[in-house]
């Protein structure tokens, strides 16, 4: 008896053997950068990124690096926050809440009781208002950025690219990636957008410029 | 330029006035059309229902009747589109390479009426006079399959005395779809009801289009509900001149009255 694998591959080959037309080359004439702005104009890229995030309902703080600690202290809740390994400690110097380390990995039930999570990111995309996390230093494993109700992400200005095509080449698909474009949301009821379902209901982005 | 009129079977039997208007209009613009009497049907109903062998036979008939002309004018976007969209594939299905070649050669010479006016004759103001409130439904075929674009609107807006009103949700299908209206009468009727409602919303006394099939559908609904909105092929509007005066039993456009 032949295996399902062999059968399916044989069916695929049989189906394709009867086709007359060989498809042509794949055209790639779409834009490589965000439309409407000059990708070399960093101020425009950062402004677009912030604008998109705000449209999604995220809170955005644009700060100088000297002010990150103060801004985080104000933006984080009183209670507790998961802080992944590799997140720069000085940024939390002024916050008085409880730092929760995820080592050894916390059970999901425990993560669910933490008020916030603070992370860095691997890349950010202006055109779509997207943060990409790849589990690298300061980003933690995926469960840790999912269960707390507030996700605060610190983005360095030089991490922000204008478009998805610019970002994708720099990302490593072997790592588990989470692309976040605004807080969790649904439009499943009468196509009306409701913000905040299962993922973090609030998203705060601290954009560090200079 | 030897020009033939392909009046279409529907217009021949049910809407001869549209064919007469086309002849009158073209004559006014200096084009004497011939009417080859052997013509019948483009085969659209067969094609759309899947009968390709039959379509190929009617395509061959079409080539026989019209093959010698320099231009064929058709007062219908959907019938006028058949030679370009369907005949070659129908010929291939029955394995008739000669027919496929013949229709490929003939198709570019087949023109839907508004395209013939604006692109071949290069006119927009055809000297028409029609002092009534008119709305226009862009039929699916004229909108998407063989797009005539803004041509009908340009022609209509150039008509003297006309009061033109945009039809709400105009891009939506009226629900005719040929055999669709018979195979799926409930959905077709529901689509048509919405189209008729939009027509009434405009307050127009005339609904125009470039396909009498769709007008027959919408008009059938309007009449069934007792409304007096009249459906007219665009050619019938463009054919009228000041010498004809207003259409007697239609209300005047308000614009004309305030002039």
């Amino acid at each position: 008896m032949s295996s399902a694998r062999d059968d399916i591959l044989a069916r695929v080959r049989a189906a394709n053997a009867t086709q007359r037309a060989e498809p042509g080359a794949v055209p790639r004439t779409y834009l490589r950068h965000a439309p409407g702005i000059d990708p070399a104009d960093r101020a425009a890229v950062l402004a677009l990124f912030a604008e998109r995030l705000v449209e999604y309902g995220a809170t955005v703080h644009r700060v100088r690096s000297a002010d990150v600690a103060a801004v985080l202290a104000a933006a984080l809740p009183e209670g507790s926050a998961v802080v992944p390994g590799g997140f720069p400690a000085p940024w939390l110097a002024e916050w008085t809440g409880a730092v929760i380390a995820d080592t050894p990995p916390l059970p999901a039930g425990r993560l669910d009781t933490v008020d916030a999570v603070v992370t860095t990111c691997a890349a950010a995309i202006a055109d779509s208002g997207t943060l990409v996390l790849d589990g690298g230093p300061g980003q933690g494993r995926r469960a840790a950025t999912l269960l707390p109700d507030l996700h605060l992400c610190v983005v360095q200005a030089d991490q922000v690219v204008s478009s998805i095509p610019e970002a994708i080449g720099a990302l490593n698909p072997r790592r588990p990636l989470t692309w976040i474009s605004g807080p969790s949301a649904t439009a499943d009821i009468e196509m009306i957008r409701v913000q905040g379902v299962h993922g973090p209901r609030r998203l705060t982005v601290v954009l560090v410029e200079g | 330029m030897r020009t033939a009129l392909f009046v279409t079977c529907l217009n021949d039997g049910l809407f001869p006035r549209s064919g007469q208007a086309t002849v009158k209009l073209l004559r006014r613009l200096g084009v004497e059309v011939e009417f080859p009497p052997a013509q019948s049907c483009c085969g659209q109903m067969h094609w759309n229902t899947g009968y390709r062998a039959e379509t190929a036979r009617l395509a061959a008939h079409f080539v026989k009747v019209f093959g010698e002309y320099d231009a064929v004018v058709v007062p219908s976007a959907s019938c006028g589109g058949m030679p370009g969209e369907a005949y070659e594939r129908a010929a291939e299905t029955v394995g008739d390479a000669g027919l496929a070649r013949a229709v490929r050669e003939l198709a570019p010479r087949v023109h839907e009426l508004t395209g013939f006016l604006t692109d071949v004759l290069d006119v927009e103001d055809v000297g028409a006079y029609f002092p009534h409130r008119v709305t226009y439904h862009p039929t699916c075929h004229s909108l998407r399959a063989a797009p005539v674009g803004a041509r009908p609107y340009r022609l209509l807006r150039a008509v003297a005395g006309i009061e033109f009103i945009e039809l709400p949700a105009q891009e939506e299908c009226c629900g005719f779809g040929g055999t669709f209206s018979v195979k799926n009468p409930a959905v077709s009727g529901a689509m048509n009801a919405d189209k008729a409602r939009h027509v009434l919303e405009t307050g127009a006394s005339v609904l125009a289009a470039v396909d009498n099939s769709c007008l027959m559908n919408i008009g059938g609904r309007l009449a069934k509900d007792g409304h007096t909105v009249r459906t007219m092929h665009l050619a019938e509007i463009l054919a009228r001149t000041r010498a004809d005066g207003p259409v007697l039993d239609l209300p005047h456009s308000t614009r004309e009255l305030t002039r």
Partner: protein
Amino acid sequence: MSRTFVGWPAFPQAAAVATRDAQLRANVARATGTIRAKRAKLVAERPDWEELRDSAAALKDDVLTHLDTYLLQVEEKVTAAGGTVHWARDAAEANRIVTDLVRATGEREIVKVKSMLTEEIGLDNALAAAGIDARETDLAAAIVQLGDDLPSHVVVPALHRNRAEIRDIFVREMGRHGRPAPEGLSDDPPQLAEAARLHMREKFLKAKVAVSGANFLVAETGTAVVVESEGNGRMCLTLADTLITLVGLEKVVPTWRDLEVFLQLLARNATGERMAPYTTTWTGTTPGDGPQTFHLVLVDNGRTRALADEVGRQALRCIRCGACMNICPVYERTGGQSYGSVYPGPIGAILNPLLKGLDDPQTASLPYASSLCGACNDVCPVRIRFTDVLLELRHQVAEGDAKVKHPGEKAALRAVGAVMEHPAAWNAAIRAAGKAGPLIPKKKLPKPLSGWTDSRIVPGIPKESFRAWWERTDGGTE
């Protein structure tokens, strides 16, 4: 056992019932109207929209042409990354594979991310038969599951329900499957979403096994991609110990970079967003992060049948954005269930016959569930030419090897055609029609044309045809 589409009536009958349901019509029209407006605005934002569509269509055609190579590449990469790849010829085999995998874990309740493929193969019922309760976690999918309803849309399966109906389902059913709906729940959408959050959360936290579909599967890297909004996808893909992902063969894209095309098209066209809130991509397993056991099930279930159809195979480009149903005037009036399949609307009208064949009356009625208006052609991100495929499928019924046949129609159209080809006969017929005009009942045509006069009258046949006028007046010159 929950409800299925088995034994569903043919489209005209189902649609006739649906079009009389004023509530359904209002719900569907409101939802599709909203989404159409959102989409139009976001699409207008992209000056390169048509170029993106060109690339997407060409990429998918490349996938289909080299599908065997890409599938083997997927298998190799996923296996190398710690996953296990399974192949399923049909629904029964896919269900058996998943059931065995879940059984081996000993779990009785598992969580699911919305997946049209698992709906297509009836996985929930198959698992239920094995004593395994698979809970849907996407809000709309959960509304359908809790209400023992059937899906009506590929993106929003509960699109046919309004807020009041959803509230009633939550109040009635949530308690029977876990945490009940909060006291005094209103039909305010944020409150309903909150009720779903609370109900699901306890399930996410204790689930050991999750089942998902995938929007894309990258051949080059073996990476699976899930695009979602609520975070239920992330919960399932991240918190479970074992993840079972079912993917139709056609979901492959060649390279990682190709995602830049599809990710820019999908959300914009589906929900009118630049990106959906969450996109998760993963390759096999990652130590210390997410499920440590990963199974990928590659499912045929008719896809190779569709692939063999020269015209129809383009339906396999579909990325399930739902835009074709949102724009469809037929869908707007019938809702999705009339199509008798988890794939409704224009894509359903072509995909179901291609997957299953035109051998039963329900499936064979679908290619006729269209007025051929072509609105779907214009919105499809992968440029599926629905009208071409619909005509091809009708041809297969009319003159091809479909088992369903319409002999009466064929005879009638053949007879009409024969008259049309013969000038003398046609000339006589047109003249006879003018004479018969007064005899034709304008308000009630006989079968099979009676549907026409249900909502319209028949135009009067003029006494003088165009050809008679031409002859009498010498082309209007006399």
